[in-house]
């Protein structure tokens, strides 16, 4: 059974704006699911609806089999949420803030666990500091510590690395992998395609409130991934010769020819192209191939 089941979920705001449109989505236990989408696509609305912050207009959400409206206490006890905005109380200590989050979920005090979470997030030496004294990156990590304080089975990370430096981003990726190893299901939204590429098992693309696609990351890249062959010419040419029109080539700076082809097709016509170049006496010094990145796939999908 999936740990999260979303069926026919829609959200229409009072003004008539449809933020979510008939969403159907199953999340498997222990996976890392990346939800991609442009600004205003409905990523945060979807997360907020699952976590109980937004009332759905129709449809149902089940968390570990518990309906998030009728059995909301059971459903929410599984969930940890790290929101996009850095919303924290400024005047209390890091330890108190994290302990408060744990107590809100009805869990008994466990200083050892709190300290271990803070240690994992490199915040242990800041445990007695007031939140207002933390840097942006530290605050972001503290938000994660708060979400982890009640040992959730599902962790929502809404744009977890927005505005953090490369080093911190990498340490967060490490943490996410570690959490997954411990059986936590992770659902993250991100603008950074490389983040999804690096971490996710499956990718979901949402656009204009609708799930456009849900696919295993590897098969998505394989299925939609285009390859590009770049031919670096020895001598500059003003235009692409007519004899090569059949290949839909592009010429850059007179010195680089690029040829896009489908990796999955049996006959990608590369041999034919190389033969034609020799036939026409066009000499080249290098050949390079490049796989489409997830970002390029994503841009194609939301066009």
């Amino acid at each position, binding site marked *: 059974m999936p740990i999260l089941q979303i069926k026919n979920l829609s959200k229409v705001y009072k003004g008539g704006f449809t933020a979510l449109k008939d969403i159907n989505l199953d999340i498997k236990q222990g996976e890392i699911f990346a939800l991609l989408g442009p600004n205003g696509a409905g990523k945060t609305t979807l997360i907020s609806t699952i976590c*109980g912050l*937004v009332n759905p207009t129709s449809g149902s959400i089940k968390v570990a089999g518990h309906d998030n409206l009728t059995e*909301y*206490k059971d459903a*929410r006890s599984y969930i940890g949420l790290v*929101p996009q905005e850095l919303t924290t109380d400024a005047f209390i200590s890091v330890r*108190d803030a994290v302990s408060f989050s744990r*107590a809100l979920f*009805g869990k008994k005090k466990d200083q050892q666990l709190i300290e271990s979470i803070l240690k994992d997030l490199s915040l242990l030496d800041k445990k007695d500091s007031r939140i207002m004294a933390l840097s942006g990156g530290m605050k972001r990590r503290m938000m994660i510590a708060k979400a982890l304080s009640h040992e959730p089975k599902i962790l929502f990370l809404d744009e977890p690395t927005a505005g953090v430096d490369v080093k911190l981003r990498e340490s967060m990726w490490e943490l996410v992998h570690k959490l997954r190893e411990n059986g936590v299901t992770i659902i993250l939204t991100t603008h950074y395609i490389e983040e999804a590429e690096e971490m996710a098992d499956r990718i979901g693309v949402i656009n204009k409130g609708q799930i456009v696609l849900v696919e295993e990351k590897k098969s998505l890249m394989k299925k939609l991934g285009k390859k590009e062959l770049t031919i670096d010419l020895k001598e500059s040419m003003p235009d692409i010769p007519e004899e090569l029109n059949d290949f839909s080539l592009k010429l850059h700076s007179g010195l680089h020819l690029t040829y896009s082809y489908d990796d999955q097709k049996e006959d990608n016509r590369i041999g034919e192209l190389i033969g034609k170049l020799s036939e026409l006496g066009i000499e080249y010094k290098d050949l390079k191939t490049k796989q489409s990145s997830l970002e390029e796939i994503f841009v194609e999908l939301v066009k």
Partner: protein
Amino acid sequence: MNITSILAIYKFEMDRMWRTLAQSIASPVISTCLYFVVFGSAIGSRIESVEGIEYGAFIVPGLVMLSVLTQSVSNASFGIYFPRFSGTIYEVLSAPISFFEIVLGYVGAAATKSLIIGSIILLTANFFVPLEVQHPLTMIFFLVLTCITFSLFGFIIGVWADGFEQLQIIPLLIITPLTFLGGSFYSLSMLPPIWQKISMLNPVVYLISGFRWSFYGHADVSLTISFAMIAFFLITCILIIRWIFKTGYRIKS
């Protein structure tokens, strides 16, 4: 009932009071002392007694009510408004706690703060005037009920308010004038008949009257009506809060 979660909210709010001790406790106590000096000593020295009660002692229940009403509304409204304003409300709303438990935590803390302030004012008043409480149980009952009711009212304001200005409007422009005009510093019988009738439209009159009765056995209106009024206000607040959480008004979109 999720006691740990309720206590977490309650403790969080109470901690805020201890962090801002000067603002939370010292400020209302100093204001009350000033009222005693101005109304009790300076003006009170020219008024012998009201309904047979020394003027300084007569105003004590009114002063306690003045502080309790404004503090209950301010504390409870700020308690829920600030997480809304800062965005930290997400944490409470996504936790496995019911709306009733959330209200219990916030309103419980606000009512406790008001109760502490009311008690401190009573103790302070004891240094200025000889105090007697003829019906201590009724006095405690009235005080606790008022703290709870007006904290619920404050909670509603905190949910309704869309800015700090709105947060201040009700305590400053409604609660304080109603308390001043509700017989805090005078007996209704001292007013001309027409103003006595108009005063009956002021709900705070019933609170102060009932509370004063518990001290001196003197009331402007019947004790039963005072109880009925506060019960009516309490039930109205509970019903409004129930509706707020049912619809998610200004809390959930």
